[in-house]
């Protein structure tokens, strides 16, 4: 028992010491490499704490190696742009001049629902309000609002996403499938040609067609 107690203190001291080197960023602000390092650290540190049959150096050496690599590489990335691109990736423009870039979205494995969710979290109800949306290398989305943003009343419900009717949005908006299809007919638009259709609380419709997106 005493061994586990002392091991815990040693591992804790090592972790605190090495984390001081790795900076003060929180999980949400971490770069990919930092996130991977953090997950690995927690696993490495826990193994010799619970199993006294594992030498403590089995944790200390990999922890020190990981933190050294992390700090050395993050220093090098500030000096060598190419390395930064490889390790951290580069920001991706998801909405460019008001145009949704489907290609970038699929490259980043970002769905329309994810984009709409991030928009709502940021306090916007429609993609039409946004001139630029940039997926930063730490995984956060930055939005730049359009000066000619349409006046949206309440929430814009995404009733069509990527050519498919969205049942929960139809329910939330109180619209029927027939209403949506009739509206599309009036606008002489095919369902499959719609990338995103939203309807707000005052029945104001916004349609983003596939052909209006950057492909």
């Amino acid at each position, binding site marked *: 028992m005493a061994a586990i107690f002392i091991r815990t203190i040693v591992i804790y001291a090592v972790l605190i010491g090495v984390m001081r080197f790795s900076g003060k960023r929180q999980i949400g602000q971490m770069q990919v490499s930092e996130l991977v390092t953090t997950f690995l650290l927690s696993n490495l540190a826990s193994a010799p704490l619970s199993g006294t049959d*594992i030498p403590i150096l089995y944790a200390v050496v990999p922890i020190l*190696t990981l933190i050294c*690599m992390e700090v*050395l590489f993050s*220093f090098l990335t500030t000096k060598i742009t190419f390395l930064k691109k490889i390790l951290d990736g580069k920001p991706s423009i998801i909405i460019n001049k008001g145009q949704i870039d489907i290609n970038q979205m699929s490259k980043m494995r970002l769905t329309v629902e994810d984009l709409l969710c991030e928009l709502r979290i940021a306090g916007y109800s429609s993609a039409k309000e946004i001139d630029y949306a940039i997926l930063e290398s730490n995984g956060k989305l930055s939005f730049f609002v359009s000066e000619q943003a349409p006046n949206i009343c309440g929430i814009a419900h995404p009733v069509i996403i990527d050519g498919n009717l969205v049942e929960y949005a139809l329910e939330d908006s109180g619209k029927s499938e027939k209403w949506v299809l009739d509206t599309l007919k009036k606008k002489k638009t095919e369902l499959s040609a719609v990338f995103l259709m939203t309807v707000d609380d005052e029945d104001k419709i916004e349609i983003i067609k596939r052909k209006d997106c950057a492909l």
Partner: protein
Amino acid sequence: MKTFISVLIIFILLCTFVFADSYFISKSLHEILDITESLPQDAESFEKEAEDISQNVEKIRMLWQKSIIKLSYVSSYELLDRADEAMGELYGAYKARDAAGFLPAAIKFRDTLQRLTVLFGVSFQSLA
């Protein structure tokens, strides 16, 4: 910059420690393994080479006892226990002049030592 230099120093020290440790442990393990490989492989040789065996077993035991403390810092205890157990059996069988117990213990000890040398050596096998 200060952090970078500190980390660089730690990294260099760490590399030195890891490679020096691997080198010295491999060296002492190879030394024990070489002597172990010279131990008799059959009952007949066990009887004939009694004097050589005595010298070799005592030397193996002494070297092993010196190494085991260093190894316990850096090796899995499971493997160490296996080798230590085999060492005990080997020594016990030698003291009792028991060829039937000595030969399997020598094989077990040699086998565990070989695993340890692979583990501590810097080779593709140890990385895999």
